[in-house]
């Protein structure tokens, strides 16, 4: 082990020694800057690679010590010219994927960019099978590369959007790879809170790579993508749950915590129901902003359409607008929304109606809320009585499929009632309740029939036991009599 290390040190030392001599006389840069005067060689002088002593020949091949162009740029000397296609990234990877080499240059950069890129959407899609969409230079430039933290870098936070939109805002380019992908992300981003802060020169708000990743960008349908529906809340929370990071923006940082416990959060994060809304479903993704007060019901209404429609035509609509109350949120809250229960309606402590409809200042609304709650309660009570009766009959081993079929209708009426409540119209509400009550009555009747049948069996048994006992007794007496007669005869 120690011996190996010694040998390595010797080799490294001699390498550094020789390269030191050679840099002084790097013929590529000398010639290209003084004689040719091309742009790449000019840019390369500011390049971090150049500062670390890396020569043109390290990427392009050839002999940097030869003065003669024919000799220096001779394929026999290993001259490759300008790398094309995937060869570009492979050239970068010869160092950037090799931890040993990177350490030699004193770099602390990760070395997995090339592998990540190959698994990403950019590294997988290709029009000819050899040359994939993005090479390192697509984002990082070829010559004049500076560290990410340098504001001149195309991947510095304030420049990222411009870099990505080079391709992603170009319809002609995007058509070649993914014609259905929108090209307005950049534009939308400019309208978002993130984008506006970014435009003001704040490097902290999210840019493309904050959510999508950098080298390992996957499509949003890829389950491993950071923007896959199930992973998205976690991605947003990287910043939004970080109180330290968010402290300049004066907004809460508990949204994720609340969301994770909400009905939407549990559906998405635990049951992996990708139909359940994630952060972007309400806030938008590229144009992320909090929805305005009057648009809340539109946002919720994209999924809860019926409820939103009923609400918009209800008397509450005007009242809410006048008081500047956000529509759905006022009763249901936002991030921490839980599954609605029957107890939301009414005038009890848990109910939401009485928050506005006080007994004294609004007796009409108060009475309506109270009446509706009463209807809900009687429907649930009737439903649970019917269910209990059906269960009882089933427990007794009776046939209850018919009753269960009726119970379905009752359950449906209950669900419809939950929707209909948003019309805030007592008459319409009563209609649905009546439908449910009728269904539970039918179910109860069926179940009662089954329970009666159960007792009929017992009665039947009783009757036949009576018959058999009588017969047995008669038989017994008959036997005794025969035997008595036989004894007499003997």
């Amino acid at each position, binding site marked *: 082990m120690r011996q190996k290390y010694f040998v390595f040190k010797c080799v490294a030392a001699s390498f550094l020694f020789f390269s030191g001599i050679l840099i002084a006389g790097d013929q590529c840069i000398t010639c290209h800057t003084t004689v040719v005067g091309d742009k790449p060689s000019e840019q390369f002088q500011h390049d971090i690679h150049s500062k670390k002593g890396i020569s043109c020949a390290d990427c392009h091949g050839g002999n940097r010590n030869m003065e003669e162009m024919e000799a220096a740029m001779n394929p026999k000397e290993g001259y490759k010219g300008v790398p094309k296609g995937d060869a570009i990234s492979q050239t970068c990877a010869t160092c950037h994927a090799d931890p040993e080499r990177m350490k030699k240059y004193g770099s602390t950069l990760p070395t997995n960019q090339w592998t990540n890129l190959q698994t990403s959407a950019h590294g997988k899609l290709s029009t000819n099978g050899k040359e994939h969409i993005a090479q390192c230079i697509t984002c990082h430039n070829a010559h004049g590369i500076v560290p990410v933290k340098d504001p001149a870098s195309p991947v510095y936070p304030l420049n990222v959007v411009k870099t990505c939109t080079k391709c992603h805002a170009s319809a002609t380019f995007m058509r070649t790879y993914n014609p259905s992908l929108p090209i307005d992300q950049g534009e939308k981003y400019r309208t978002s809170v993130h984008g506006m802060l970014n435009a003001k020169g704040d490097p902290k708000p999210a840019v493309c790579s904050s959510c999508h990743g950098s080298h390992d960008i996957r499509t949003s349908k890829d389950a491993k993508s950071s923007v896959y529906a199930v992973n998205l809340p976690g991605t947003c929370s990287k910043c939004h749950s970080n109180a330290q990071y968010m402290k300049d923006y004066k907004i809460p940082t508990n949204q994720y915590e609340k969301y994770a416990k909400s009905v939407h959060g549990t559906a998405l994060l635990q049951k992996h129901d990708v139909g359940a809304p994630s952060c972007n479903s309400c806030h938008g993704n590229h144009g992320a902003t909090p929805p305005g007060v009057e648009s809340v019901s539109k946002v919720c209404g994209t999924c809860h*359409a019926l409820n939103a429609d009923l609400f918009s035509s209800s008397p509450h609509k005007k009242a809410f607008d006048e008081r500047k109350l956000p529509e759905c949120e006022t009763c249901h809250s936002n991030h921490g929304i839980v599954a609605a229960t029957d107890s939301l309606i009414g005038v009890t402590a848990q109910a939401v109606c009485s928050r506005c409809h006080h007994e004294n200042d609004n007796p009409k609304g108060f009475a309506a809320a109270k009446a509706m709650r009463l209807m809900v309660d009687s429907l649930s009570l009737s439903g649970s009585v019917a269910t209990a009766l059906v269960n009882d009959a089933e427990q007794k081993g009776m046939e209850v499929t018919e009753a269960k079929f009726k119970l379905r209708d009752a359950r449906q009426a209950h*669900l419809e009632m939950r929707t209909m409540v948003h019309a805030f119209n007592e008459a319409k509400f009563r209609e649905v309740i009546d439908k449910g009550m009728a269904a539970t009555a039918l179910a109860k009747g069926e179940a009662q029939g089954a329970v009666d049948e159960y007792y009929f069996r017992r009665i039947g048994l009783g009757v036949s036991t009576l018959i058999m006992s009588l017969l047995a007794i008669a038989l017994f007496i*008959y036997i005794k009599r025969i035997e008595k007669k036989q004894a007499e005869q003997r």
Partner: protein
Amino acid sequence: MSDIPDPHVQQDKRDFLKFALFGGLFAWLAAVIFPVLSYLKPPKQAEVIVNSVKAGKIADFANDSGSIIKFGNKPVILIRNPQGEFKAFSAVCTHLECTVQYKKDLGMIWCACHNGKYDLNGRNVSGPPPRPLDEFRVTVQGEEVSISKKS
């Protein structure tokens, strides 16, 4: 036992005993035969599993309409599209198991509970339903339309 038997009493007793014996026997036979005969009477639902049900005559179903047919203990929706073709799906919404209906103005299968919508191939196209509706097979024989389970 030592008493001289009164022939009258003996006669009565015998008659009563015989009556009890025969009466009991007949009642017993009835108690055995009644369940057996009831058992042999074909039950309302003749088959173990409902594999197909008769929905009705073609004329009973207007074009561009849907009707709920009871299939065993589950509802099935029979759709006749504007072109007059039949399709049938489980009428149990895949979201919260409400019964769906045909919405003529949308030309879609619609669930009243949460506004779930399915196209006429049973695919969930909008709203909360997570899965398409299960399809049933419709067979038209002469005038008779029947629905059966897809195997």
